[in-house]
């Protein structure tokens, strides 16, 4: 346990700049979204009055982005290679499994904290409306999170192949490019909804009452009642895949 405590301390201390930077960016993002909502005249109320969709998004996006930034790449991997710690760590009595477990304890903690915050937030706000919103919100939280985890897996799989600073820079650029491609590719995944259908829906959402909006929103994105559980299962699968990739890479010796 003492060993994990030391490894986790190292992971958190090294990643804290990245966490703080991400947190600040997300706060700014959230404030800008709220600002746009107020400027556009949107309202956030409950019990029969209209509800702005952006406010719903904020409740899970905020936690998802924060958790994702911590659970995703926190810069430790690259700085380990750049400082020489990765090479040095092979001379330490720490196994690849121990390194990976420590790293993933931090990721898991971030995911769980984000999930709990999201669930509490969505339950408080939306249960009053009698909807299954928390389940849909949890699904969206995990999907957003999964994006970060997938990009992190790709990044690790690419960057950990570097043997020196020169190849690290090259592979880091490639990994960044692949991450950008993944994000762009997701943009083009067909939603099964035409532009006019989406426009009609948004008009209804902006004018209809609270329970109607929420159920219609959920119906529109065709998320089933067990959405939250599906999201959890998907995240667990991606999490395990990431663990395996990280473990494999930690075991890999230099050439």
């Amino acid at each position, binding site marked *: 346990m003492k060993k994990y405590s030391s490894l986790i*301390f190292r992971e958190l201390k*090294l990643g804290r700049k990245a966490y703080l930077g991400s947190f600040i960016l997300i706060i700014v993002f959230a404030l800008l979204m709220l600002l746009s909502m107020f400027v556009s005249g949107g309202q956030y109320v409950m019990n029969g009055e209209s509800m702005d969709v952006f406010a719903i998004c904020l409740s899970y996006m905020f936690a998802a982005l924060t958790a994702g930034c911590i659970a995703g790449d926190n810069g430790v991997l690259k700085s380990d290679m750049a*400082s020489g*710690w990765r*090479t*040095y760590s092979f*001379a330490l009595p720490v196994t690849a499994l121990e390194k990976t477990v420590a790293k993933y304890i931090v990721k898991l903690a971030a995911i769980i904290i984000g999930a709990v915050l999201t669930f509490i937030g969505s339950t408080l706000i939306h249960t009053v409306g009698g909807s299954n919103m928390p389940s849909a919100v949890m699904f969206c939280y995990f999907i957003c999170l999964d994006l970060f985890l997938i990009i992190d897996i790709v990044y690790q799989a690419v960057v950990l192949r570097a043997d020196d600073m020169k190849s690290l820079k090259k592979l880091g650029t490639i990994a960044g490019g692949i991450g950008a491609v993944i994000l762009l590719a997701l943009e083009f995944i067909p939603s099964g909804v035409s532009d006019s259908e989406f426009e009609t829906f948004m008009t209804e959402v902006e004018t209809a009452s609270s329970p109607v909006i929420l159920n219609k929103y959920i119906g529109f994105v065709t998320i089933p009642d067990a959405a939250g559980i599906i999201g959890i299962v998907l995240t667990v699968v991606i999490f395990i895949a990431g663990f395996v990739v990280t473990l494999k890479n930690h075991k890999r010796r230099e050439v």
Partner: protein
Amino acid sequence: MSEYENAIEINGITKKYDGFTLDNVSFDVPKGSIMGFIGQNGAGKSTTIRSLLNIIPVDSGEIKIFGLDHLKNEKEIKERIAVVFDELPFHDVFNAKDMSRIFEGIYPKWNRNEYMRYLDRFQLPRKKKIGEFSKGMKMKLQIACALSHEAELLVMDEPTSGLDPVVRDEILRIFMEYLEDGERSILMSSHITSDLEKIADSITYIDRGKILLSGYKDEILENHGVIKCSKEQLAEIDPADIVSARVNAFGAEVMVSDREKASYKYSGLMLDPTSLEEIMLYYVNRDKKEWQ
């Protein structure tokens, strides 16, 4: 302490790269001694050390540390060894206190009080970021970490390179103190041969991936000598006795590998003792036989 004769046994290790091969490298580091591992840049010192630490896998050969197989007993071995590299591998954002926090979980025998004593002795600040340390301070910090968990073997790859003579001397004295109990050993690679002449018990010389010499330092120095002669006299020296000869306009300086024999055979010629640095220089040019 466990029973073993040699802290390190390297037997026939081979590692191939494009353009370079570590070729059948073998040597032992006796328990309680300091082995100086010398060679010019690119000779294979770091590759050998990395193989020893299983940072890179070898193509063939056997490595034992404390009499244990370096792969099968890797974790146990690494709890008992300490490593010092030429560049500090700790992140700049940490301070000396953070490193204690990290290592106390990694090494079962981490001694925080001992570490703090070394920090005081080296006059290293505890809360200043490592990124703000000078090169000498960084090396001292690395050494403080290495000496603070009762390691039986210290493996060091160019630990004094880039340091000024005062700091180097201080560090070398600490290594001598480290070995006082006779149970600890040091493998230290360096191309600063004067440091090794001060403290090493034995020397292994590697060049272009091959071991050229390995043995007790005093014996190696005793066995080698430099004959100073004219070019005409050079022609009379048996080529089999010559490692290589440095020739200039005024004469020649010839390194021999059997000084005692040479003192009888070439009694009319001036035969001087030599240094590790000269031995390195002459052996590097052994293929040329005569060089300038």
